[in-house]
């Protein structure tokens, strides 16, 4: 049985297999679990912050890296879920674990929107850069629209949309608990919840991508016409992948919103929309493990640069991006793995 699950976690669609990989995985997981015991509140909270973005990156990896449809508008789902969470919790508070329900509803809203948009796009056979630009346009429309909702007329119940300044002070996630709810501050409490979610999502995606579904979406990436001629309804698979990607972006949106008790239209703007693409591309888009590692690496790398790089930080970031793309065509993570594996390779193998 356990073996059965394990084989379903592996396959041609995901890197890493066998006892060595899973041993390493458990080791990393154990380290991640133990780490808050040794780190200060800032570091833990900051790590949670990095984790919140990972879901959106994984979602983009599914829709772009695996299914071949570049969505430039993942931030639209991020924003919808973030605002959704804000509106719900500002109106209904956090009692009785409602924040968790709000999380689910907010993600569902993002999915619903993605399903409508995806239907419109994929059933209209929009592909390639056209898809990218339409999704980008959607997120920009949302941004422009939300930016001008400063006025008092823009309110949903008790929640003011509050324009460009953004919506703030929504309740944080709470877990109902006998003898007092556990409020998930961006510290150890939230850390374990988000880490748990991340592991769950990662493993679930591995199973999904190595299933028949995963086979079909990579087939669509490689040659949609051929996939259709094998009897697959390409549009439906694309739509499902798109909705999965949106759900993950929405999850990121909710987590981000509770982390800083804040969500703003700029979260759906041009820069915000481009960032997930950069993380995913730098890590290596066609694998969720490289995406996960790459996203964390880019996020922490850029933050570190901003802290220590003074005015040169952005220049160095730019240079790093260019160099990475040139030197590591399959993404940063694979390039590193190649370098690390080099001493172990037998002589004469390859050239």
């Amino acid at each position, binding site marked *: 049985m356990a073996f059965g699950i394990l084989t379903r976690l592996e396959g041609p669609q995901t890197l890493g297999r066998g006892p060595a990989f899973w041993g390493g995985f458990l080791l990393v997981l154990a380290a991640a679990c133990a780490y808050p015991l040794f780190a200060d509140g800032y570091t833990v909270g900051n790590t949670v912050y990095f984790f919140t973005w990972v879901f959106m990156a994984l979602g983009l990896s599914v829709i772009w890296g695996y299914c071949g449809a570049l969505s430039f508008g993942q931030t639209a789902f991020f924003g919808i879920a973030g605002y959704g969470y804000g509106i719900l919790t500002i109106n209904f508070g956090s009692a009785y674990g409602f924040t968790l329900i709000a999380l689910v509803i907010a993600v569902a809203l993002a999915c619903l929107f993605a399903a409508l948009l995806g239907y419109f796009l994929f059933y209209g056979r929009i592909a390639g850069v056209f898809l990218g630009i339409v999704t980008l346009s959607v997120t920009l429309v949302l941004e422009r629209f939300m930016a001008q909702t400063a006025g008092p007329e823009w309110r949903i119940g008790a929640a003011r949309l509050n324009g460009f300044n953004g919506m703030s002070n929504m309740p944080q996630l709470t877990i109902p608990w006998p003898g007092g709810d556990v409020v998930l501050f961006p510290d150890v409490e939230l850390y374990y919840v988000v880490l748990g979610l991340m592991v769950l999502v990662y493993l679930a995606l591995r199973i999904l991508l190595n299933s028949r579904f995963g*086979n079909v979406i*990579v087939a669509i990436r490689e040659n949609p016409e051929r996939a259709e*001629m094998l*009897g697959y*309804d390409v549009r439906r698979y694309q739509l499902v992948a798109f909705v999965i990607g949106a759900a993950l972006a929405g999850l990121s949106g909710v987590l981000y919103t509770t982390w800083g008790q804040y969500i703003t239209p700029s979260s759906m703007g041009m820069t915000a929309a481009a960032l997930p693409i950069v993380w995913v591309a730098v890590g290596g888009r066609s694998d969720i493990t490289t995406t996960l590692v790459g996203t964390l690496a880019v996020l922490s790398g850029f933050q570190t640069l901003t802290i220590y790089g003074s005015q040169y930080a952005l220049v160095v970031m730019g240079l790093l991006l260019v160099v990475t793309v040139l030197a590591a065509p399959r993404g940063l993570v694979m390039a590193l793995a190649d370098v690390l594996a080099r001493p172990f390779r037998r002589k004469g193998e390859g050239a």
Partner: protein
Amino acid sequence: MALLETRSLNKHFGGLHVTNSVDLSLEAGEIHCLIGPNGAGKSTLFRLILGEHRPSSGTIAFAGEDITGLHSFERIRRGISVKFQVPGVFKGLSARQNLEIALQRRLAGAALAREISRLLDFLGLGAAADTPAGSLSHGQKQWLEIGMAIALEPRLLLLDEPTAGMSPEETHLTGELVRRLNGEGMTVLAVEHDMAFVRQVAHKVTVLHLGRVFAQGSIDDIVADERVAAIYLGQAHA
């Protein structure tokens, strides 16, 4: 009853009338070859049958059902399968995965794995099983695509120039394969310029010219037809 039947099928591209009132009827169990000059509309007819193009007018029936309005994947699910003129494989995926994707709608688990290895060996791709399909030679791609097409176990198999780029030996093997599949009950419609192949397999031959059915009959009838020689075969076969 005819397995596939097109009724006064027409297709225009702008001012170009590429398919012109084609009535083609395919009996279940036959191997039917479609020949004709370059640009006669053979591949276009395939695309119409597959639903890649919408006909300008006319209908297509498969096993008695009107499929003119169906999406391609729906037609495939009813039992049609195709190998295109330009090989359409999943370039970034291994040959093995290519076959898995074709087979997984029918098989799963150990049976799937068994069938994949069987097909790989059968197609002569055993050594190239883990090579990305994009790195295969032209002929190897052709074989792989034929493999994917037959993996669906269709009732009707469409082959567009299956032996292009194959050596005479391999062409012959392909012919034998087609006959065996036919023996197992598969109906085949093949486009080919290789007359040896046509002679080897065809029960019936249709000649398309300028989008119209120009001649129809046994291979001997066709080869003997001077008009066909004039537009298509040339002196060597006449």
